[in-house]
């Protein structure tokens, strides 16, 4: 975890309504949320010195997709937990090869997300 007790989360998805849903799901747990709309912006967040404990990563986004963003972050040595969230079931292997920790299909079920967060020890 980052030095703060709060789980710092980066939501990466080009759809605003989807990002709002994830924000509301995590709001219940008191997570601190930042949103970006593409993979490059996600990478830039870390390049500019921001630290996150958790990344929710969409796959199909403009400029840089989620698989490439995941690979880039791992190449930078970023230790944050990365949960890939996409409608593309066939991208599971590519995401895990790139370094994702978990994979969820959209639409995200709140209970499934909470179970993963518990497994990551982000929830009491």
């Amino acid at each position, binding site marked *: 975890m980052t030095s703060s007790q709060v789980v710092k989360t980066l939501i990466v998805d*080009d759809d605003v*309504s989807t990002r709002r849903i994830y924000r509301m799901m995590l709001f219940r747990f008191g997570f601190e949320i930042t949103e970006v709309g593409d993979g490059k912006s996600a990478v830039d967040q870390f390049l500019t010195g921001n630290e996150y404990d958790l990344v929710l990563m969409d796959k*199909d986004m403009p400029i840089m997709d989620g698989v490439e963003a995941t690979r880039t972050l791992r190449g930078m040595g970023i230790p944050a937990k990365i949960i890939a969230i996409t409608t593309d079931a066939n991208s599971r292997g590519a995401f895990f090869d790139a370094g994702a920790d978990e994979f969820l299909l959209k639409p995200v079920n709140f209970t499934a997300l909470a179970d993963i967060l518990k497994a990551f020890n982000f929830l009491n």
Partner: protein
Amino acid sequence: MASAPFKAQLTDLLNSMFAMDFLDEQFKELQMLEEASGPGFLTEVVTLFCGDAERIISQLDALLNEPAVDFGKVDANVHQLKGSSSSVGAKRVALVCIKFRNVCQENDKEGCIAALHEIRHEFDELRKKFQTMLQLEQQIQDLDSK
């Protein structure tokens, strides 16, 4: 309570939307999130979705009116609409998006145009129902806060 008739109307509306597959279980997830967090969340998400969907549908219309259709861009837009409609539980819109992607992947322009008409129809029907839902919710909120 003055809001009781409006609550009954809202319940009937939502029940019919679920029964007719306008909405699926994902929308119930969003309803549960709103119950936990307070009013306003669903309004925000539905409004964002409708704005985004309208923008994507307009973009698809423009792309399909090009002399040489870029099926890659069409597919990317439909994929985005499928994702956002799935996230809010807009089942019928999401299902038509799947059909659209199938004809798009065959580079079938006429098929794509037909699918776009169908998406437009389904989205317009859904949007009308969402607008009624939001109006009823606002009336209920206004009456309950008095």
